[in-house]
């Protein structure tokens, strides 16, 4: 057998396969959500293209030893930050937010790619830091690595994307190892900054969203309308769903953003509770495998890289699925590998590539 030689890198096809199944379900849902209002299928075709590009990106990343990627991580990190600064200075406002760079007919969100670059940079930092507890200096460095892009994204102001860096902070704190007094300090800092952030950093529409979350009747046709409609779509799907292409709520435009952030409502409506459980199960299976890789990784950097990226998946799935039925307020956080969108699809495939990369090279002589 070829695979008896354990020094050769080998790819875990279960993990990659799960990701591909999720992406295929995503394309199917995008089709079902848009075929009625977009008869040329432009949105569907673009999503298929993004997935193909994403797979190619993942393969390229897998071909490069992740230690080499650690070596170039600072360059990627700096380039990402420069793009974010560029946006702040020259970016065009789209829906009150400067988060898109336009190149030719295409546009992309550097903040999505920055998620991967920051995780890479953080993992590189922990690779060389192997004390049981983080001292104060290392802790501040770790926070700075995350804080710079988060700060730049908050100014855009894209609060949802900035919040999605939270899993990295949690990883740094929980897995880096923090002494109890720093925990206390962090909790105090959060307690102070929350009301401060409410008045200083949140824009009117963001405050409005939180208020609507607390009291959905406040604006039945604003953000609350979106959740109400999504809930009607999901609830009316029942156990078995209405069937592929047979959803009405999303299709007729009752649910806004039904092919991007609210794609899960299309799943709920057309495939019912069964579909929801299957997709959640697939996500869990993927995350479970990734965390198993993390335990077996060859070095500390690999472990941290996998954990950081996996936490992105968990966080995005948790927040996105929760907001579909109003457990959490509406934020612009896509469903990994499923929601329509070039930047996020590519970034999640890059993350898949990196996780597989670490797993492939878990044997020392590879």
């Amino acid at each position, binding site marked *: 057998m070829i695979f008896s030689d354990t020094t050769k890198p080998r790819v875990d096809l279960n993990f990659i396969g799960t990701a591909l199944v999720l992406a295929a379900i995503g394309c199917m849902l995008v089709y079902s959500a848009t075929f009625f209002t977009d008869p040329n299928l432009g949105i569907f075709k673009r999503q298929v293209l993004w997935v193909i590009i994403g797979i190619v990106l993942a393969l390229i990343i897998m071909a490069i030893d992740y230690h080499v990627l650690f070596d170039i991580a600072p360059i990627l990190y700096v380039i990402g930050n420069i793009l974010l600064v560029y946006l702040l200075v020259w970016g065009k406002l789209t829906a009150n937010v400067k988060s898109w760079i336009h190149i030719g007919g295409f546009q992309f969100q550097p903040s999505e790619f920055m998620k991967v670059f920051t995780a890479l940079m953080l993992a590189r930092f922990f690779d060389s830091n192997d004390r049981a507890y983080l001292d104060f200096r290392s802790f501040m460095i770790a926070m700075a690595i995350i804080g710079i892009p988060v700060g730049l994204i908050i100014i855009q102001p894209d609060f949802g994307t900035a919040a999605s860096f939270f899993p990295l902070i949690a990883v740094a704190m929980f897995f880096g190892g923090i002494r109890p007094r720093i925990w206390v300090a962090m909790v105090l800092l959060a307690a102070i900054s929350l009301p401060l952030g409410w008045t200083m950093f949140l824009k009117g529409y963001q405050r409005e969203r939180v208020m609507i979350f607390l009291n959905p009747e406040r604006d039945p046709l604003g953000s609350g309308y979106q959740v109400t409609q999504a809930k*009607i779509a999901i609830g009316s799907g*029942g156990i078995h769903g209405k069937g592929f292409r047979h959803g009405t709520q999303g299709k007729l435009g009752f649910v806004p953003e039904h092919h991007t952030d609210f794609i899960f409502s299309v799943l709920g409506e057309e495939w019912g509770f069964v579909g*929801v459980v299957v997709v959640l199960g697939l996500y869990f299976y993927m995350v479970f495998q990734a965390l198993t890789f993390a335990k077996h990784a060859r070095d500390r950097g690999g472990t941290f890289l996998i954990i950081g990226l996996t936490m992105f998946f968990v966080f995005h799935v948790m927040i996105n699925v929760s907001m579909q039925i109003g457990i959490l307020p509406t934020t612009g956080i896509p469903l990994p590998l499923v929601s329509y969108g070039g930047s996020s699809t590519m970034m999640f495939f890059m993350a898949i590539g990196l996780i597989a990369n670490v797993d492939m090279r878990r044997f020392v002589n590879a």
Partner: protein
Amino acid sequence: MRVYRDDQKFLQFRINAVLWGIVAVFVFLAGSFWFVQGVQAEKYRGLSEANALREIEIPAKRGLIMDRTGKILADNQPAYTLQIDRVVMKPLKKADPQRRQKLEQFLARVLELQPAEVSARWDKESAKLPANQPFPIAEDLSMAQVAKIQAQSIAFPEANVVPVQRRNYPYGTMAAHVLGFIGEVGGKELAQNNTLTQGDLIGKRGVELMYDQYLRGKGGAEYWEYDADGRRLSEYTPARKQPVPGDNIYLTLDFELQRRAEQYFIENEMVGAAVALDPRNGEVLAMASSPAFNPNVYSKRFTPDVYKTITSNPFKIELNRAIQGLYSPGSVFKVVMAIAGLSDGDVGPDTTFNCSGSGVFYGRRFRCWRPQGHGAVTVDHALKVSCDIYFYNTGARLGVDKINEYAHQLTFGEISHIDLDGERAGLVPSTKWATEKQHRKWYPSETISVAIGQGPLVVTPLQVANMAAAVASGGKVFQPHVVRYVDRVQPDGSYRRFRVPSRVLHEVKLSPPALKSVREGLWKVVNEEGGTGGAARVEGLDVSGKTGSVQVIAYAGRVRAEALPFRYRDHAWFASFAPLNNPQLVVVVFVEHGGHGGTDAAPLAKLLYEARFKDSVNGARLDLSNPETLEQIKEGELPLPSTR
């Protein structure tokens, strides 16, 4: 290799802890969905069937376009459009497969169209819009048609009559090339601008296009409740989003000047263009291009017949000749030659050349237009009688590259960035142009042709106006513009006014003696006996100008214009400004195949000057010794000339 430290266990423990945490969250999420989809499914299924509110767009009212004083040149008229709502129709169609045919027959009867025509429109229009948006199938319904359709609203609930605003140009072809027209948004525009949606009407030409983002406004929305059969119930008014009307635009055009210019071309059945602008700030007071199109045609349903009529017109009616027509400037270019020669020092104000009716340059004989010659001529006299020999000599001394340099300084060969679409740059030849673009050598004898505005040299009437403005203002050329103000509606209903600024486009250094000689010559053209532009003379106003007649083809001997077929006749030019000492108006008239500048183009200039300075024509003048008047002029106001 880095050795795992003792905390491997620590990490493994924490990873397991996180894993269990994730299990808990996923179970919680699945449980929540069970609650919504399992326990409450019936409730939501009911809501889904009773659903729901549908968003129906309310288009914004497009901004008005007015002349400089507020006379409305483009407004909106209420009209009725018939729309088909496919969401309402879907369940009805399921119950009756013949539904569409029945509806089409009904509509064909009411609209007095062939059923096939209705069917063709249906296919075309329904493909343009998403299925949840109603699509239009007939516009401008008469009241009788509206009544007939409303009477059948129970039998055909999917056919809705909706009030709309139709773009209207009350004066028809008036200022059509400046105003432009509107049309349905195209695929390219949709891709470039994400605020547009399929079916929107946007500006396609002229001010309608260039200022579209101001004129367009912002659409609103109504939310209507529908029942399970797709029948419209009632509007949910608290959610209504009011549309924001577009900004109103004041053009710099003067209605009276524009009207006179267009009338002149129409009455004389002439093809051509006229530009009148204020040399002190670049405001365009009149811009006519003949023949013109009727922009109202574009606001209506565009049938192939209409399209064919427009494109098959041999005179290219969509062409704005003032900024897109490229013509040889002819003798009008002699003004550039005089400025170039005097400024460069190749000729002085007193230099004389002897005109005997012809002269030999670079081995070729070039003729003056007057076979018997003009005798000894200085620059002012040469301009007055338009002596060719004088300018042949000036051209030979300057060379083509010097001519090119001065022509560019006077805005030829480049666009002037007027706020209209499709402006063309024209061409001023040079030796570099000949080698790079033509891959040939420039022959010095060609320079002689260029010296009297012939040869490869081509210009737009607007460029000639800019040149005249430079001479009028002593060297400053303002960027010409057709919009004066943009009035933006404020939330409280008042208007906030934004002024279009005056920007200096070019500043040419003209030596005062050179300027004086040129202006003197131009004054003599109009005001002295024997000048070629006497037809533009206005009693009591110092009009200065230059005529031009451009040979379209070479013909042996001399032929009367009337004897030639239309397309072989000469082009006629007249470029002018007034008053001499405080120029306030530049007028350039161009008549395609008109014959002679003096007889065919100059009379329109006279009409425009009379309209603009109507109080001064009978001996009235601006008293420039009055400090108050000077103060007013400095402030940018135009004082009315007083009658002495």
